[in-house]
């Protein structure tokens, strides 16, 4: 066990996979010579050379298409999209090709492609560079979408993603890169499609993923110390496939649920979770499911406005306060 950052965990997982399987290679803008915009790929060009760590031109549709082709022919590309905001240019390659080739060509060639990309706001990068678009991909059959919140899960899920034979969107978050956590040294993996109860509780369940799962855990711990509220936190870790069993079991226990997400509220992950819960745990619900999400505006540049628009610990605490049953207060 060592305490490392989320960034380090990703880096280590990439390096391990490059060492483990010679078919694995990296592609992306500025990942080689510049060592990555967020330094995830630092040192890898030097160690593995330009055939394994490929700097690409600024054309997402081109290199995601190229990676898809490489995957069809048996390589295992790991593409870095600098932030999720640029992924729009490669939508056609991802949704129309990578997600469908295995199906449309009679299962002849799987697409073992990983697209790593950070989302999230709060860095004063303004409206076009601060988005959370994971739900677009979680909507598409043929893709898998994972969104770890801790260094340990990041490492385990990245390994699983590289070894999976389907295209995986691996969602990172700008504000998580420096977060530290204990990480096992062995070659462990975290299964795709498995959520995790990161804190047990009995009064209310908070369901979240990526950075907000970390915030939720923080808030839950604080509330337990201060107010003796017992908040259960479920970190989804994977958005597609979604682990129904874990969230349903949690809500069967607490009877009340909040979905806490950084993306916009309408048609979001929260909507999907709420629908799932009412389908599978209707008789266990004691209150409508709450969605705590960011305001539905293009994210402002101004620091104070940005803070006002993004959801966070404060909004979650208010929601928990509203939702916690009277007798448990």
């Amino acid at each position, binding site marked *: 066990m060592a305490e490392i950052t989320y960034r380090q965990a990703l880096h280590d997982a990439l390096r391990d996979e490059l060492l483990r399987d010679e078919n694995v290679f990296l592609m992306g803008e500025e990942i080689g010579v510049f060592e990555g915009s967020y330094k995830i790929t630092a040192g890898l060009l030097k160690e593995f050379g330009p055939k394994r760590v490929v700097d690409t031109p600024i054309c997402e549709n081109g290199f995601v298409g190229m990676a898809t082709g490489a995957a069809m022919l048996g390589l295992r590309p790991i593409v870095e999209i600098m932030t999720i905001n640029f992924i729009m240019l490669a939508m056609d390659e991802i949704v129309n090709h990578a997600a469908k080739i295995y199906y449309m060509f009679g299962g002849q060639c799987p697409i073992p492609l990983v697209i790593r990309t950070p989302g999230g706001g709060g860095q004063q990068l303004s409206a076009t560079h601060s988005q959370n678009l994971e739900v677009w991909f979680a909507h598409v059959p043929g893709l898998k979408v994972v969104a770890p919140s801790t260094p340990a899960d990041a490492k385990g899920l990245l390994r699983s993603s590289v070894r999976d034979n389907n295209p995986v969107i691996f969602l990172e978050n700008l504000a998580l890169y420096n977060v530290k956590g204990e990480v096992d040294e062995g070659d462990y993996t975290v299964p795709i499609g498995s959520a995790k109860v990161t804190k047990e509780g009995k009064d209310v369940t908070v369901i979240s993923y990526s950075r907000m799962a970390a915030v939720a855990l923080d808030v839950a711990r604080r509330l337990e110390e201060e107010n003796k509220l017992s908040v259960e936190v479920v970190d989804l870790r994977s958005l597609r496939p979604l682990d129904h069993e874990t969230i349903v079991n949690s809500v069967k226990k607490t*009877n009340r649920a909040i979905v806490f997400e950084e993306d916009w509220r309408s048609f979001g992950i929260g909507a999907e979770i709420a629908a799932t819960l009412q389908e599978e745990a*209707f*008789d*266990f*619900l*004691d*209150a409508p499911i709450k969605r705590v999400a960011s305001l539905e505006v293009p994210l402002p540049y101004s620091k104070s406005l940005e803070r006002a628009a993004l959801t966070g610990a404060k909004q979650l605490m208010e929601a928990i306060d509203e939702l916690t049953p*009277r*007798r448990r207060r």
Partner: protein
Amino acid sequence: MSEVNMPRLSDTMQEGTISRWLKKQGDEIKKGDILAEIETDKATMELEAYDAGILEEILVQEGETVPIGQVVAKIGNGSATQKKVPPAATQRGSKAEAAPNGDKTEKGDAVPAQVDEPQKESTGTQRKGAGTEESNGKGIETEESIVQSKSTGREESGSRSESAGREESDGSRMVKASPLARHMAEEHGIDLHQLQGTGPGGRIVRDDIEDYLEQQEKTPAATPAKASAPTTPAQELPVPTSAPSSLPTDTEAIPLSRVQTIIARRLAESKQTIPHFYVSSEVDMTDALAMRQALNASAGDEGIKVSVNDLIVKACALALEKFPEVNSSFKDGQFLRHKQIHIGIAVDVPSGLVVPVIRDANIKGVRSIARESKALIEKARANKLSPNDLEGGTFSVSNLGMMDVTDFIAVINPPQAAILAVASTRKHFVPIDGQPVIRDLMSMTMSSDHRIIYGATVAHFLQEVKRLLQSPYNVLG
């Protein structure tokens, strides 16, 4: 004030006849009470109250037929039954649509009923004036109200607010409770009407149930008495809604399920109101059993096995063809003689007793009957019977033969006129040509409605059943 509409009870139903009101004006109604029996093109079914309150007005009398959606009665807080409708005063605004909105604003139970009453009444009369076009336009009972309340965008009171929340000062509106609270209430046999919700908008939540249970533990005797005393109409069969207080500790009170409540009511009603009389007969089943054995042997392992009951059903159906007066009902002082012969078979299920129906049994072969009854029994045991499976019987057979009974008497399944109770087949010595011979004898007893059938008819009918079963190849015809 909530309106009770003629419900759509089957896909093909266009209109329904109120065959009988089970409640009268001024009666206190609980949610789920059966208000009336409705005769449709298919069957007689029950009209259930979706709201609690006082049955203020019966707008469609027994025997009258109205299209679906039409208002047949009104449930309110009772003041309208004492006070007569003040004329005119259309303060509510001229459009009918104004009414729901107007009501919505006054959500509080604090609104004094007295002040509000004339206004509501005027809305009522107006609605009546607007007449059928409104009720037709309304489509089918609550579906319309769901749409309406949604479109006015009121989240809190949910889908029923329109139909239920019309008269809110009287507690007649639907109880708002979380799914969990409903679940818990059901588990503990708590009537949600007794509770005051403390959740958002007065919703009953887990907290309230837990409060109630705690309180009940502390004062086991006082609470239920206080809560339920004023609401139980005397003539209703008592349906326990909360843990009875005065039971000895070694006795457990088990609340009746919905089905059991209906069974209890209908059977009591049958035995109390129908003048039953009984005629028994003994049938020599030796040949029938031999024929059945031959039939089943020839069907092979995979084939459908014909049961003794299937032969009896077929024999009854053929006998009913010959004696159509047995295949009839007594309703509203008249004979209803049914042309089709649909035979109900009593099936024992965990929740009580159900009587699914084999249609046109007289024109079906015994194998078809066997196949159908097998399927119906399986569905019954799995609690999967549809209303369609249960509708429309014109005669019933109840068979306890497999359970070694010498004899028994069944209660008529209304509105049918008769039911045949079939006991076990047993070996007896029978004198034949002065010699004792072992034969398989089966006893059967028919219970009949003496208002429409008489002893001789039943005797002839049973003779025919007996004749058919004793020369059993007749039932194959």
